């Protein structure tokens, strides 16, 4: 993103910052950026602070950040209250299980709608797009029924199946594939490639940024979901995702308002994703910029 320098960068390089009204604006914008960003980070910082202080010290006593001393006791306690490693495993299985199937279904349908002509194309596209207007999440009552009838209630399949098809993804891939020159496909056809080979060797490799952006959106949606897992999984706790574990932790600690304990648990859950993002931050944002997601 830095390579997309705005015209301002040029000015900053040419004249010292302290002179000129333009530069005063620029400094004001810098200050605003820092202030807003810190404001946004504030709850997170406070959550870490309270997780690290002794359990019996409310934040109104002593140093607001450090309390009387720093301790990892809250993390230890939070870790022992739930089978976190199993919750984590379930969340990973669900995310991988949803995404891998989605990538196949959206690629196939996206290609058909982008490049093939067939009777009923528009009608079928609109039928699929209904899913974009009516998110699966609100049709809980009937979908629970369906999941029971399919015999997968209280299994990890129940957490994955409703999301295997994605109208959003189909639309995204359709748009991305349309921008790929037809000549490339025709050249591959001349070499004797069939439909699946064309998709696999021509369209997919040229659409990686769109897949990355789609994956980011979908992974965070499934990783963060609570309502559906809460309803379609019961026991054992090991088969339920992280969000459910976090919800249980909240219910369990609510009464005593043991914030340190609760925040430590919350940090345990969000840490993997945050670290992952910090490592890939630039690539994620570039993928967004390069994909049709804008």
């Amino acid at each position: 993103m830095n390579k997309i320098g705005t015209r301002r960068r040029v000015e900053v390089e040419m004249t010292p910052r302290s002179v000129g009204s333009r530069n005063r604006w620029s400094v004001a914008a810098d200050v605003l950026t820092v202030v807003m960003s810190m404001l946004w980070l504030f709850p997170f910082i406070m959550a870490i602070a309270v997780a690290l202080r002794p359990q019996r010290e409310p934040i109104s006593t002593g140093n607001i950040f450090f309390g009387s001393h720093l301790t990892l006791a809250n993390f230890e306690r939070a870790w022992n209250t739930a089978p976190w490693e199993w919750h984590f495993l379930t969340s990973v299985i669900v995310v991988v299980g949803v995404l891998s199937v989605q990538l196949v279904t959206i690629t196939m349908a996206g290609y058909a709608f982008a490049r093939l002509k067939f009777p009923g194309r528009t009608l079928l596209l609109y039928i699929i797009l209904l899913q974009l207007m009516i998110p699966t999440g609100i049709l809980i009552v009937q979908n629970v029924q369906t999941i029971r009838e399919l015999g997968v209630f209280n299994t990890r399949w129940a957490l994955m199946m409703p999301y295997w098809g994605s109208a959003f993804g189909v639309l995204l891939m359709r748009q991305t594939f349309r921008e790929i020159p037809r000549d490339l496909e025709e050249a591959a056809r001349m070499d004797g490639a069939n439909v699946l080979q064309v998709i696999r060797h021509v369209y997919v490799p040229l659409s990686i940024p769109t897949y990355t952006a789609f994956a980011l959106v979908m992974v965070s949606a499934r990783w963060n979901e609570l309502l559906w897992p809460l309803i379609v999984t019961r026991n054992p706790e090991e088969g339920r995702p992280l969000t459910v574990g976090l919800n249980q932790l909240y219910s369990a600690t609510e009464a005593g308002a043991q914030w340190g304990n609760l925040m430590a648990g919350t940090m345990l859950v969000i840490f993997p994703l945050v670290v992952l993002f910090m490592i890939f931050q630039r690539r994620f944002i570039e993928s967004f910029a390069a994909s049709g997601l804008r």
Partner: protein
Amino acid sequence: MDTSEIASDAKPETVVVPMSKPLLQRLVPYLLIAPTLILVFTFTIWPVTQTIQASMHEPGRATRDDAGRRVPGEPTFVGVDNYTALFDSTHFLGRRFPRVLTNTIFFTTATVVVGLPLALGFALLINRPMRGLGLWRFGFFYTVLLPLIGAANIWAFMFANTTGVINTVLGAFGISGQDWLGNPQLVIFSLVLVNIWKQTGFFMIFYLAALQNTPRDIYEAAELDGGGYFTTLYYLTLPLLRRTSLFLVIVSSTYAFQTVEQLEALNRGQPADRGNLLLYFIFQNLGSSSNMGYVNAMTVILIGLLLVFTVSNFIVFEGRSEDE
């Protein structure tokens, strides 16, 4: 495929082969979309028709047969009675539903009206060269990575009455604290605040991508014409972002309509439904099977609201792809 055609040229009696090929080829598009179509049918279209049907029926009373087994009763058709009951102030759900409905509409509107301009502001701020940019960008974006339930837990701690962060900080300045989640006047604003804090980073990314995809020479031309920053912003940047904004209005309102997680951790719809939203209300009433007619009617109303807000989604998306 070439070989079969050559073969058919040589032996005219195998003309069947090239004839069957187009048939298979004509099936290809349908085979490619079949998985998506089947899934959309199973988890969207079928449940929608079932919901509409069930919303016009009263669930039958379950009885016990001679062996003491539970036998579900036959539902009776009641037309729109379930819907009218939801707006009837003497009905046990009708007393609460209109409040929940207005809350939902207010919550959604406030999220969009405050959240999107803020997202654009953040995108403009970090779309400039600056020292420590990575950190500030992270500050705006990291909330996207938090599970909603985790974000809600953090805010439960922020909002807590005596032990919470906000009231402690206010207290340090001698300002008396508020009951952020217990005060019926305040609670909906607290929920909007949490939602904006959680979602703005996500929408910011879309604006940022749009800003970075605008051709630079347009700005250089504006620069040469002597346009100031705000003039350029108003006359050049905003019109270029119109489509992104329209898309985000739809996406953010769809998200807001489905808000559930944070209510579960923050206030469970309390106090007195002042802090309740439609999908959470539906969730709260799932337990009793005699309520199913009403629950389905509420779901249909929620679908209706979503349709009203999202019909333009097609226009936006389709309009975009036609240009290319």
